[in-house]
């Protein structure tokens, strides 16, 4: 059995990208996994239908935090519509591993947080 803890996940959990607050964000959202207590919050700045900047903060296992780091990296500069269209397979592709149903929840917390964040009212339009 190959390990869940591949280099890419360990790297992003130890050195998370886009971690912190975003002062000029026009979206903010939070999500929590009630079964394990992992939590994430995101700040997003959207301009002309694009995600021009994004930051996250959170607490939890390496899978949930690395997933947030990888996701923010991947959607930065992309269209909001494209980000809203992401699904489970896209997250698994970013992480590069297969996950049990339990750990899938850890991985998908980032996507849930992003979608909640983008659903918040903002001055920008999709």
């Amino acid at each position, binding site marked *: *059995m190959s*390990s*869940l*803890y591949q280099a890419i996940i*360990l790297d992003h*959990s*130890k050195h998370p990208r886009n971690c912190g607050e975003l002062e000029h964000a026009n979206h903010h959202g939070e999500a929590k996994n009630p079964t*394990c*207590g992992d939590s994430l919050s995101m700040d997003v700045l959207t301009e002309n239908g694009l995600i021009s900047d994004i930051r996250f903060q959170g*607490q*939890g*296992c*390496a*899978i949930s935090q690395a997933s947030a780091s990888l996701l923010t990296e991947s959607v930065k500069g992309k269209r909001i519509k494209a980000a809203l269209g992401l699904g489970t397979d896209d997250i698994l592709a970013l992480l590069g591993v297969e996950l049990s149903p339990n*750990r899938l929840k*850890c991985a998908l917390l980032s996507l849930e947080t992003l979608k909640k964040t983008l659903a918040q009212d903002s001055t920008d339009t999709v």
Partner: protein
Amino acid sequence: MIDIRKHFSIFDARPGLVYLDSGATALKPTSVIDAVSGYYRDLSANVGRGLYATAEETTARFEAIRERTARFLNVRADEIIFTRSTTEGINLLAYILEGRIEPGDNIVVTALEHHSNFLPWKRLAKRCGAELRVVPFEENGSIRPDTARSFVDSRTKIFAFSAISNVFGTPNDVSTIVRTAKALNPDILTVVDAAQAIGHTAVDVRELDCDFLAFSGHKMFGPTGVGILYGKSTLLAALPPYQVGGGMVFDSMADDPTYMDAPHRFEAGTPDIAAVLGLGSAITFIESIGIDRIHAHEVGLATRAVAKLRETFDDTLRILGPTDERESGIVSFTLDGIHPHDIAAILGERDVCIRAGEHCAAPLHRALSLPATARISFSVYNTKADIDRLIEKLWEVKVMFT
């Protein structure tokens, strides 16, 4: 206790297995597995009314386990109610006690409790307009023996607490807690969650003198699907049934049906017969080793594990509770910068089974401001080699995150 391991066939099937999660459920000795399969193979009848040989033998064996369990706890057989688990026992109890709680009364529990000895009382208090009082715990993970002095008053109806915390592993002084509470309010009902004590340390219920006590069979080498609720016979005699149905009624046609006496009044429906017979074999297994020997073995391993963990991980490790002599086989810890779920998942990939999370004890973790902890728990089949393997693999985890 190397010779003990030969009773656990799982080690033949999985030679590399390091099982350190007996607090969740114990592995099963061959004798217990044989008792379960033997029932289905050789008897397979229901308990109760059957007038043929296999039914009569099943009923006799089933009731013999009730007596065996009663002797194991030093109580009477009619004080032993077969349930599905600790959780079901406590829920049953909370249900049948509802008529005794009035608005303005209070129920006392502790912040150490597993959800199974917390939520039934929280819900009961809410239903009855009673107050739920939550006793805080000491740094070592136990409640003060005289804790009742601060929390029990004339309106206290129930005081429910665990014999051993499933996170700290620290025992409570059950008999002193009960005595102090009763001295303040003789009408109080004391309820002990013995899930982590049974099969690990001697439990003499007469000596503890609690009114009710619940535990699960599967944490004491028995099968899943059977638990015990003990209740003092004088109290059970006056309490209403929980579920109603088969096997517990005298006159079902009456407007107000009349029910059988305890314990059958509380056992509607066909029980998990195979599991009960397996529980009997689990008691035999425990008694063949000796409860004091089991206790000494587990405490010895836990104490050694704590010393080794501290020696290896220094101040990056936090042990919950005492760092010198442990008093049970349960040890919970955290490692700086590594989430307990990652610790458990990575150890799991290396065939070292531990548990991570809140261990169904959210109030305890809130009180400590910890999102989660990692827990190891020892049993008779664990060895010093298991500790070495744990430390070796845990070091690999640390290196991965450094």
